[in-house]
């Protein structure tokens, strides 16, 4: 069960990608993929990170393990009394911290190196983190495979000999091989067929409990997030628009975007046909997001607001703040939450 101990504290994180234009290909603008995200992650919890494509959820995940470079903000990792800013590490600290956060990827076809056996793929990281002998490495990798419900001998097989579900398990095993504290699951089950998806979801749950891991679970599938997460953060155009306990968020979404998003999902239950809020238009270009609240051009609530209220939505960017003042914080970034 999640504790109240903060393990990761993300502070005003910004990740921009330059857009080059014009005669000399100068940087004309930036795609603000992650635009000032504040997030606290507690030891042992599963934080769901949802949003539509292009909202910045994957970039946020990759920024945390620095697969893409952030341009501003802090990522503080707490270990006991010590705090490390992941964006400013000395080389020794870097090696120490690197193994604490690992990632599981989406695509079971590209997540494993087709030229190597499972053992071949996994042994280099182990070498790097000090497992000297081959026998030791074989043992560790064998144990890991068993932990993900596979057979030890399969470490000598090549990726093309595995099914999609098996590859995803190997991906999980790889993330676990250096004993991380936090695992970022980046769309880890999205590419799998439903029947396999359930297997992997269960496996992730088991492993988390067995190893006391913390998950950052990134997906666009709100049903899956609801099932697996303790808390859920909803992202829109590089910002978190709502962050709450999973139950609270699904029962009483406060942000109009979250509401629309939840209502848009077809539910495989004939008794629960919802009233669908159909959003108009497309997600705006993240190079030039709308002024004020970035959601206002599509916001169903915006239309019913009075003119001065509309002006506020268009001019002032809302801050993520607690809307309910209940025991568990329910943060919303909206001037007029429900």
């Amino acid at each position, binding site marked *: 069960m999640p504790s109240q101990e903060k393990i990761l504290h993300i502070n005003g994180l910004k990740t921009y990608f330059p857009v080059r234009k014009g005669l000399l290909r100068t940087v004309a603008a930036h795609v603000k993929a992650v635009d000032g995200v504040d997030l606290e992650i507690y030891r042992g919890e599963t934080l769901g990170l949802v949003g539509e494509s292009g909202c910045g959820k994957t970039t946020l995940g990759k920024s945390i393990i620095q697969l893409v470079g952030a341009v501003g903000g802090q990522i503080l990792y707490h270990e006991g009394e010590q705090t490390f800013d992941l964006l400013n590490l000395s080389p020794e600290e870097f090696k120490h911290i690197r193994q604490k956060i690992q990632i599981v990827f989406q695509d079971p076809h590209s997540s494993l190196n087709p030229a190597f056996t499972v053992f071949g793929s996994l042994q280099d990281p182990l070498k790097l983190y000090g497992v000297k002998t081959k026998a030791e490495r074989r043992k560790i990798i064998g144990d890991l495979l068993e932990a993900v419900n596979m057979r030890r001998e399969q470490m000598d097989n090549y990726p093309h000999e595995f099914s999609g579900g098996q590859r995803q398990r190997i991906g999980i095993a790889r993330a676990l091989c250096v004993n991380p504290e936090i695992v970022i699951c980046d769309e880890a089950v999205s590419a799998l067929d439903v029947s396999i998806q359930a297997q992997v979801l269960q496996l992730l749950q088991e492993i988390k409990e067995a190893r006391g891991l913390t998950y950052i679970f990134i997906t666009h599938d709100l049903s899956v997030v609801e099932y697996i997460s303790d808390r859920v953060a909803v992202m829109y155009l590089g910002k978190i628009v709502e962050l709450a306990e999973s139950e609270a968020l699904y029962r009483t979404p406060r942000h109009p975007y979250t509401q629309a998003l939840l209502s848009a999902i077809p*539910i495989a239950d004939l008794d629960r046909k919802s009233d669908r809020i159909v959003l108009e238009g497309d997600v705006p270009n993240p190079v030039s997001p709308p002024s004020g609240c970035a959601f206002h051009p599509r916001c169903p609530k915006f239309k019913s607001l009075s003119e001065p209220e509309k002006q506020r939505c268009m001019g002032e960017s809302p801050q993520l703040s607690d809307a309910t003042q209940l025991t568990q914080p329910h943060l919303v970034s909206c001037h007029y939450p429900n």
Partner: protein
Amino acid sequence: MSADQKVLSVKDLKTYIYVNNRCNKALDGVSFDVYRGKTLCVVGESGCGKSITASSITQLLPKLSRIESGEIVYHSERGNIRIDQLERNGPEMRALRGAEISMIFQDPMTALNPVYRIGSQISEGLQYHSKNTLAQLKQTSIDLLRQMGIPLAEQRVDDYPHQFSGGMRQRAMIAMAMSCKPKILIADEPTTALDVTIQAQIFELIDELKQRHNTAVILITHDMGVVAELADHVAVMYMGNIVEQGTVDDVLRHPAHPYTEALLKSIPILGKGKQQQITPIQGSTPDPYQRPKGCQFEPRCPYATERCQTFPDSQSISATHDALCWHSEKVLSHA
């Protein structure tokens, strides 16, 4: 549901694929009917044959594949047409495509030709199925785009596909498919490449068009949620067979096939929270080249008995509900 409402019936259709010098029995005896103004959802996991079903109907199969046997009958106003006996790209087949039966595809980005303007691609089919001047064609394209809810249709009709967003492209695809007011619209996973909020828009649109033109829709999907929201009839496919079919109520409320049952149990359902139990289906889909002998689901099936070593006969549960399982009674009662 009277027989004259039937627009398409497929009987014991077998389509095999011959890629890499091997024979994959992608469809191995598929039968279903499609009714005017109704939506048939074909649902299943990847590789189950649902897309092959769709392309068999329009004979838009990959080159290295063939309809082996069975019937595809299109009940047109001029009488019945045996589609399976038409030459693949022959004139009779072409007269049906687009005009009577049209398709929309999964990825609107690749399904549109990148070098032609949206408008000309929309009206291309019309050009061959009706006699229109170029100006008329363009006007029709604009009207269609407007109907699909694309703002500034007069201007956007001259855009190229890459200038459209994903949702708009799929709308353009639908405009193209609906341009000749077909009797049957086959939608092959039309929203898989789109975000949920856009998916909702597209489904609204398809539903509206279906109502307005009384079009029969065959919707191919892997998403049970989509089925629940849109289908009138459901066909569940597994390894080239329809393992269960019936009305949406029949199938979703009273699954009679262990696969349907297991599938429904394995997906988390929105709103049921963290406490819901999901039960994965054991094992994985078999290699299509090394199929189980009898019932294809047998190796993964909790109900499996020795009898399952022989291929099951279709069991009729009710007038509208069939399942391909020796143990369907047991499954029904279990649920």
